[in-house]
């Protein structure tokens, strides 16, 4: 059976390899020092989606992302790897959204996309590590959910079977479609870009990304797939009170740069005598041994 699959993807700052310049002296985040990347676990989710598409001919994989116009980068990245189309959800009204307001906007976009069989995304994004958006989208759409997915084992006759991680073990779960799945980083990695698809989609852009005097304007008329669908709050009939800062029940009261409470530490080098001295000191104080 053909499936309509929506992959939730987020463009995130790469917080994994943070250098010393990641924070400004004022204690704010220096975004310029952190490259924007495809959220790693969303790539694991994309791989599962692409496999489902291969196993179910006629299926469609769409990438849905919310963010500023440059977030279209993750849609292009998805198209290079085999996704069929993308939706960029972008609007100033979405700014400052916490997970609840984000999941509301995403759920409205999914409703607009129409009859969806599987919504699949990474378990969590590396800039927030909350793992909340997947289940919240599921609740807003009144769909079942399976989180912490390692692998989709089968999908047939309106039912999906997945292997998922649980605390201290694994579980195999069977659930009816439609469903929301969130995928772990330990699931199989995403396939690389396909050179032909890179050629096909490298000029794919959302309207807001297009410069005024668009070069190759004719090409965009001839090849409608190069124009990424772009929706604002009004396009998905979103209630502005539930979007962005206004729709976010959580407020940030304070943000602190981390200052460790400095201890009086004993400093030594790595010479034999110094290491031996330390070992003897620790043994004498019964710290070790």
């Amino acid at each position, binding site marked *: 059976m053909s499936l309509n699959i929506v992959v939730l993807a987020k463009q995130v700052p790469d*917080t994994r390899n943070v250098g010393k310049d990641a*924070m400004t002296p004022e204690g704010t985040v220096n975004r310029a020092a952190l490259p924007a990347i495809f959220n790693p676990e969303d790539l694991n989710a994309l791989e599962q989606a692409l496999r489902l598409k291969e196993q179910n001919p006629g299926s469609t994989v769409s990438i849905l992302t919310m963010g500023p116009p440059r977030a279209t980068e993750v849609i292009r990245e998805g198209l290079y790897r085999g996704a069929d189309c993308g939706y960029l959800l972008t609007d100033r009204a979405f700014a400052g959204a916490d997970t609840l307001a984000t999941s509301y906007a995403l759920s409205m976009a999914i409703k607009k996309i129409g009859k969806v069989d599987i919504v699949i995304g990474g378990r969590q994004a590396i800039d927030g*590590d909350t793992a909340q958006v997947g289940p919240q989208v599921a609740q807003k759409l009144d769909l079942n959910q399976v*989180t912490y997915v390692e692998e989709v084992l089968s999908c047939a006759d309106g039912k999906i079977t997945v292997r998922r991680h649980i*605390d*201290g073990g694994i579980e195999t*779960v069977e659930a009816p479609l439609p469903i929301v799945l969130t995928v772990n980083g330990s699931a199989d990695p995403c396939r690389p870009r396909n050179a032909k698809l890179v050629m096909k989609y490298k000029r794919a852009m959302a309207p807001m990304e297009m410069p005024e005097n668009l070069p190759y304007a004719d090409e965009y008329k001839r090849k409608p797939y190069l124009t990424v669908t772009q929706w604002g709050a009004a396009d998905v009939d979103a209630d502005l009170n539930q979007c962005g800062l206004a729709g976010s029940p959580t*407020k940030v009261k304070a943000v602190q740069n981390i200052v460790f409470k400095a201890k009086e530490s004993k400093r030594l080098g790595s010479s034999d005598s110094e290491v031996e001295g*330390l070992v003897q000191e620790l043994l004498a104080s019964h710290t070790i041994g």
Partner: protein
Amino acid sequence: MNNVFVYCEIEGTTVEEVSLELLTKGRKLATELGVELEAVCIGSGITGKVEPQVIPYGVDKLHIFDDARLFPYTSKPHTSIMVNLFKQEKPQICLMGATVIGRDLGPRVSSSCTSGLTADCTSLEIGSYDDKKAGKHYDNLLFQIRPAFGGNIVATIVNPDHRPQMATVRSGVMKAEVLDPNYKGQVVVHNVDDFVPSTDYVVKVIERHVEKAKNNLKGAPIIVAGGYGVGSKENFDLLRKLAEELHGEVGASRAAVDAGFCEHDLQIGQTGVTVRPKVYIACGISGAIQHVAGMKESGIVISINTDPAAPINDIADYVITGAVEDVVPKLIKYYKQNSK
């Protein structure tokens, strides 16, 4: 009304340690706010089994939902119970473990209640908050404190206008302490069908395999932990040797796990295990706050790092400036020589 609720996670008929830790914290919050502590236990065949496990932590009211279909956990039935119970009871605070279950259930419940949820809090406090824009003052809010942005900052989150204020906390972050073994709490066994529509039971767990944790990081008195600076899988084996000599356990930072030096279940920190050993030997760990959040309660910290300015050195009792592959073999050698 307005009480503090804790969702208790249950494996079979045993309440998980993380829930007991949260009950302890919940008791303190409830006492500070002058309200009661209520616990929710959902499972199969748990009536008569969970009461003595839970009430001694100072639980004033225990809600039990007992039905064969409620274990193993699936999202929708547990969500329906929590949401419908909250409609009746209107709690001001709800705490859950930042476990696979808590992180599956929490967001779903918060979305349904349109209330705020803060994941993986490392500290919970009561305090007041001024919303300067709206010119409003709030007393007795739950401060939900957590590292954010890859652990480079710590954010204090509040939910001024929505109830319950929901937070998840990882296992080991709070400490479980029995309040009174003879504490008197009320037990209410609810009729599950009043809370869960039968259409909720559509996700089937067809196979389930749970084993006890392979390592004993949480209870280990000595931990030798490796970071990205360890450099390779082979060098990581040196840490295992040192740990073995010291009768300790090995742990790792996220960077070491991501680099493939060791398996994921060794990860210490905000997205891993929280530990409080007597001795913590940090090898090639720079000390991102996410990692420090998981080990800062350690007794004595020894840092081995080529970078004398590594942030972890600031919280270390002993700093050895040198390479892991150089220093660790020396530690092993001189420990063998000097200990009997």
